[in-house]
């Protein structure tokens, strides 16, 4: 075991997850690759969505991969940062919208 939980070299080993469970691993990669194919959304748009989600999921491997992928597709710094803000806005909005539960509870308990 290495001394840190995250090693950038592990990103290259992603494909090896099928080693312990081939069928499910293969199914996952088939699905994953299909999702990122050009469809109703362009591959460029999908890269930006993936980049935003990579941040909200706080996955360093995904941030590494989709930052590079976005650059390769000609995405600008401004577009990348705006995508991250969209993710951040949803993440903070999701937390804040739950405050209505808190408010409901407060109002019920205190009248």
């Amino acid at each position, binding site marked *: 075991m290495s001394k840190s939980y995250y090693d950038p070299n592990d990103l290259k080993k992603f494909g090896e997850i099928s080693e312990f469970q081939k069928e499910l691993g293969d199914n996952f990669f088939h699905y994953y690759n299909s999702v990122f194919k050009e469809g109703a959304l362009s*591959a460029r748009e999908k890269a930006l969505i993936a980049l935003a989600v990579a941040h909200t999921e706080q996955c360093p491997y995904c941030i590494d991969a989709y930052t590079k992928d976005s*650059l*390769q*597709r*000609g995405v*600008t710094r401004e577009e990348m940062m705006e995508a991250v803000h969209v993710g951040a806005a949803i993440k903070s909005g999701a937390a804040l919208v739950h405050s209505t539960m808190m408010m409901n509870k407060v109002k019920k308990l205190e009248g």
Partner: protein
Amino acid sequence: MAKLKLNSLKKRKNKLADPKYQVEYLSNGIFKNGELPLFQHKIKSSGFTDFKPKPLEIFQINLGYMCNQVCTHCHVDAGPDRKEIMTKETMQLCLDVIEKSGAHTLDLTGGAPEMNPNFRWFVSEASKKGVKDFIVRSNLTIIRANKKYYDLPEFFKQHHVHVVSSMPHWTRGKTDRQRGEGVFNLSIEALKSLNDVGYGMPDSDLKLDLVYNPSGAFMPANQSDLEKDFKKALFEDFGIHFHNLMAITNLPISRFLDFLIASDNYEDYMTTLVESYNPLAVENVMCRNTLSVSWDGWLYDCDFNQMLELKVDGKSKHLKDFDLNSLQNRNIKVSQHCYGCTAGAGSSCQGTTT
């Protein structure tokens, strides 16, 4: 990307200005310790035991390393401080050889080839040689750099030149970071002036193609996807038309190699190129159908080998000793920079190779 430097590596007396040092660097480290395979071993293991040329199709002439720009990625280490330019005598030798070569494409490059004082004379003479495709690689800004160049679009049209221009992105920020402050606006002006005389317009036979190369240590995405994005953005924002986009991978030589090392991207970038090695791309790499001529008349397998001073193998090494038969039987010289042309969809001066 590193901040734009104002001088060439040569002017800065950077060690990487020495081609021998570059070749050495590319053979040491991760390639010497066996972490990554040498290119010559890699092609051999994928069936290319003899790496020889196919029939010659493209005769590429570098008219000199002088340029009005100092781009961060430049594999030529070109700039205003470079004084190596082709003389009229060497141009005459080129004219003598063009027909002998049997190449259907003549490809002029630099630096900024237009800065050579004999450029117009040479284009006029070369256009009489009957090649099918006569390319001039223009950096665009030269067209707007000085009044004496403003009529270049008309001049190109007069000689039915195929204009191939560098355009790293459709936004100002990305373009100027790579090629220098103000380059984007001048490039847009130049593209408009080319469109004005008919270049790049739909159905026009005055061909205007753009060359894209990534702004940093990563490979280009799919060429046709990028072309769609470029076409949409340049037309919607500026009303500009062009025909095709060629996506070129940055090769790890000269100023791009300097950037890779300085930014600590060298090993990762080389690993990416090696891991993306595509045997199908090897089949059509440009060194197999191209000959590159330097400003002083020496012959090379490609423009990259020219910058590394890896002259062609065999006896016919200079325009003065041009012997097509001997050249066709030569072994192509390779080193680790060649991984740049064989990665992914492949890369050449004509774009992807697969």
